[in-house]
């Protein structure tokens, strides 16, 4: 494959598109965060204890897992794919962490944490290669790797994951530095690093190019296979990181650990305004989507109504958020305020 030298004409046209792309995305980002803040403030009506910094802190800690896993999902969606193996990889890395590393791990044991992430990345590579080289639809390929990894984790643990969290992970999830939760610092650093990777590097630009049109990118000399495989590897690694964080959070692993994250990762990406068909979207908007969904969860949890109606409200708010965040809604609002 030819090295990644972008055709000057193509990159020029891309730059132009990026200018037009960024503006609605910025609006989406601002709106998701504004909606989240509004929800937190409005939730005072649900319970007087809500609407506080305490609730905001809960939201941050609960959404951190989703943010990390959704980063990977976002990259895969960006290249026009979908990753259904998120749940299994979260579980796998959690199980490997408690069994390989465990609570009494010394310095050598800690070195196994990167090894776990390498395992995840390799599984992501398998998905990516199946999709690019064998031409299997992403939906099926990642579903299959997900099923296989889940069965592997089940067999490996014989159904009962042993062990608990290593101390550094407990510290990461529960510790504080100068009164600021370590988790908040970690999440912020992760978001910045991830956003830079996706938005401001050559690799990030190649992801957008492949997502917009694999054929055009190929013609323009982008190493398509490598880029796509890398996206799946990063997604699997991000799921692995989320799994490690969950181990620190709940001090142990269960085989259902990742189950509740698959659909939310997709929802966070889509609520954040990315196109499910690929080629557009920004990670910061996905973070907004994750925060919005988690905030919604905490507010709905406090409503004193049956689970059925709570679920109905949850679904309805997702739809309303999607409708509000449509680009032409903003266009319409802007048209009301002529400059």
């Amino acid at each position, binding site marked *: 494959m030819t090295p990644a030298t972008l055709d000057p004409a193509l990159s020029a046209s891309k730059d132009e598109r990026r200018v037009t792309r960024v503006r609605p995305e910025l609006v989406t980002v601002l709106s998701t965060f504004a909606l989240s803040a509004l929800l937190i403030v409005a939730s005072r009506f649900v319970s007087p204890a809500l609407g506080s910094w305490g609730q905001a802190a809960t939201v941050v800690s609960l959404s951190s897992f989703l943010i990390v896993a959704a980063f990977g999902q976002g990259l895969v969606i960006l290249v026009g794919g979908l990753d259904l193996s998120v749940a299994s990889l979260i579980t796998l890395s959690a199980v490997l962490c408690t069994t390989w590393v465990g609570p009494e791990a010394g310095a050598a044991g800690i070195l196994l944490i990167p090894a776990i992430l390498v395992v995840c990345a390799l599984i992501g590579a398998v998905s990516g290669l199946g999709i690019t080289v064998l031409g299997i639809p992403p939906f099926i390929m990642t*579903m299959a790797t997900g099923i296989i990894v889940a*069965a592997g984790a089940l067999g490996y643990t014989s159904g009962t994951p042993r062990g608990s969290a290593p101390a550094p992970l407990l510290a990461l999830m529960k510790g504080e530095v100068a009164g600021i939760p370590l988790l908040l610092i970690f999440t912020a650093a992760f978001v910045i690093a991830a956003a830079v990777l996706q938005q401001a590097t050559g690799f990030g630009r190649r992801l957008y190019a492949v997502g917009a049109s694999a054929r055009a990118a190929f013609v323009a000399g982008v190493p398509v296979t490598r880029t796509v495989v890398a996206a799946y590897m990063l997604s699997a690694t991000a799921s692995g990181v989320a799994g490690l964080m969950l181990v620190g959070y709940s001090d142990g692993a269960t085989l259902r650990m990742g189950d509740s994250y698959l659909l939310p990762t997709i929802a966070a990406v*889509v609520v954040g305004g990315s196109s499910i*068909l690929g080629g557009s979207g920004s990670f910061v908007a996905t973070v907004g989507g994750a925060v919005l969904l988690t905030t919604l969860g905490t507010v709905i949890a406090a409503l004193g109504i049956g689970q059925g109606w709570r679920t109905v409200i949850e679904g309805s708010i997702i739809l309303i958020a*999607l409708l509000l965040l449509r680009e032409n809604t903003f266009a319409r609002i802007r048209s009301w305020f002529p400059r």
Partner: protein
Amino acid sequence: MTTQVASLPPSAASPDRLVRLVASGAVIVTILYLILYGLYALWEPSALTAYTFGSLVNNTAPLAIAAAGETLVILARGFDLSVAGVISLTNVVMASYPVDGPGGALLSLMLCMAVGGIVGAVNGYLVAVLRLQTIAATLGTMIICQGLSLVILDAPGGVVSDFVADTLTDTLFGFVPVSGLIVAAVVGAWLMLRRTDLGVALYTIGTDEAAAALSGVRVARTRFLAFVAAGMVYGIAGFMLTAQTVTGNPNSGSPFLMLTFAAVALGGTSLSGGRGGLVGSIMGAALLMLLQKVLFSGGVSSFYTGIFQGAVLVLAIVFSRALTHLLERSRA
């Protein structure tokens, strides 16, 4: 995503019809099915009895019909997650409002299709008119349907009329499963629909939406109708599931979510639209259900069943793709 040369609209005649037919997903998945069935019969001789086959068909019918409905949406380049919600919802509606006798069964079927159709219309409006992304909009409606199911029935139970429970899982003349006839009826309706403008429009939109719009296809209307029709078909799936399980369960649809898409893909329908058909999806569903039986009779160790399922899923797709490829090349 897949940018392979899209197949011609199905009505277009071609000298290579036979090759195309053989290369189509439906035929390949049927061949795979027969091979696996042979294996199953080898290990489990009772597989060849009318009873075992009938119970397998009963077991397959709900997933097969759900996959058939999903295919309508996928052909027009969409994803419909609401399939899981509609099946749960129609299942609890039926178990909460049982009606006796053959007339009652028909009434229940109408009710299920109406419920599915309404959900489909909401999806269609959100997607075709308000232009939300299909996967996101249907995620929302799926969650709402699951919530409504819990509101209607807060724990498994309810009553299913004897006629529905017994007749729909019975066999006619000792060897024709009634549930199989219902699947056949869905296929029949599809074969008729496929010849209509709407059927052709589905493929055209899935292949190239902009070109379809330019050539005068009413994109929004077609997409809306695809969702409504799909919803009604999910309603039938919920109806058949209720007949089989003879109970209402607010979570009954959840297992269908992933399986439905797997069945569609196995059946050779492109998940990016424009290519494939209902029959393939139905056979894909049948293959998935058969796989459980084959793995059981083959004595695959329980913990690792999933590894085989995943591997077979991938291999079946690779196999059918490679075969299609070979046939296309030999034709060229």
